[in-house]
């Protein structure tokens, strides 16, 4: 008499989550707080990509070491997770004049649309570098807070970004003007910005941007800006919205 022993392995019950359509999973992830996204990326493979995309769509560098690590960990991979980044911020990060670090941090961010720079010096060499790097063409939102630079550099950077739609400058310290003969002027047929926001400007940057011919559909200004009428005048035909603060 032979006895057949059958071993039956019990299959795990199918996860209900596996049967959810991807659109529903994406909607759940999109509504999670940022603090939960690391956990959600570990739920299932189908949760990982969307969670990582949300984690990495906004990154901020607060030290030069972080920039170096980013460049080492996520080198040239246009379809890698560096491509998830849409917003990048630099806060008190780069030593003045260290353009190489700046360039390294930006060059593999192929989905970048927003650049935020806070508490840094913008090197005078940057405007010349911009046409050589593809990433700058994708920038549509530029926020410069508490920067120090020359007026020439700030205006040249702004005018070098062909697809810029939103420009926000706050508490900037811009020194030195330039001779009228070398004043940067906006290229012809350039569309007005969607938003030009100047806060805490002592008049220098506003005056320089106005002189360059930059126009905007929405102006957001401190009411005590010393050149209020000069700022409004170039945009008078295109201005759809005017926001005044702090009266």
């Amino acid at each position, binding site marked *: 008499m032979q006895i057949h022993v059958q071993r039956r392995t019990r299959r795990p019950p199918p996860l209900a989550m596996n049967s959810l359509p991807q659109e529903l999973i994406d909607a759940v992830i999109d509504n999670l707080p940022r603090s939960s996204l690391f956990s959600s990326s570990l739920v299932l493979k189908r949760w990982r990509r969307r969670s990582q995309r949300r984690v990495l769509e906004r990154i901020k560098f607060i030290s030069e070491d972080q920039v170096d690590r980013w460049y080492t960990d996520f080198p040239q991979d246009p379809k890698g997770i560096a491509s998830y980044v849409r917003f990048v911020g630099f806060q008190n990060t780069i030593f003045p004049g260290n353009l190489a670090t700046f360039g390294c941090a930006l060059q593999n961010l192929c989905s970048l649309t927003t650049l935020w720079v806070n508490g840094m010096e913008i090197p005078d060499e940057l405007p010349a570098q911009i046409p050589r790097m593809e990433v700058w063409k994708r920038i549509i939102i530029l926020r410069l807070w508490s920067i120090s630079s020359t007026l020439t550099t700030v205006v040249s950077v702004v005018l070098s970004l062909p697809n810029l739609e939103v420009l926000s400058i706050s508490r900037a310290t811009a020194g030195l003007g330039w001779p009228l003969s070398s004043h940067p002027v906006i290229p012809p047929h350039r569309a007005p910005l969607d938003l030009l926001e100047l806060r805490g400007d002592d008049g220098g940057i506003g005056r320089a941007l106005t002189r360059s011919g930059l126009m905007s559909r929405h102006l957001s200004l401190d009411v005590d800006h010393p050149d209020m009428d000069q700022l409004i005048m170039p945009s008078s035909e295109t201005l759809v*919205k005017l926001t005044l603060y702090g009266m």
Partner: protein
Amino acid sequence: MLMDFPDLFALEIPHHTVSLPALTTLDLNIRAGIPSPHLITILSSISSAPALDSITLERECFCVDLSYQDSWVDLDRWLTRMAEHTRVQGGLSVILRGWPKGGPSTPGFREGCR
């Protein structure tokens, strides 16, 4: 100058005036609780804004300084003129944000606007 708003001659008239033919939205954030004379001067410099259909007045402070009551009168007058001269169908909307109901310094322009 100021052809659309002749009554603004009662206000302080700035040297430079500007016509804003495309302006539809004006947001004023009144942090100090009162509209400053400087604001009135800036608003008075707008000689024409025929497409204006919405003005938002946002307050972050409810302190009242009676010595500045004239500022409210001037702002009321400017808003009323804007409401009278807009060419937007349905008229000008004034949106009050951060204003307590029945609080102090309620401007009179609300009666003049829809």
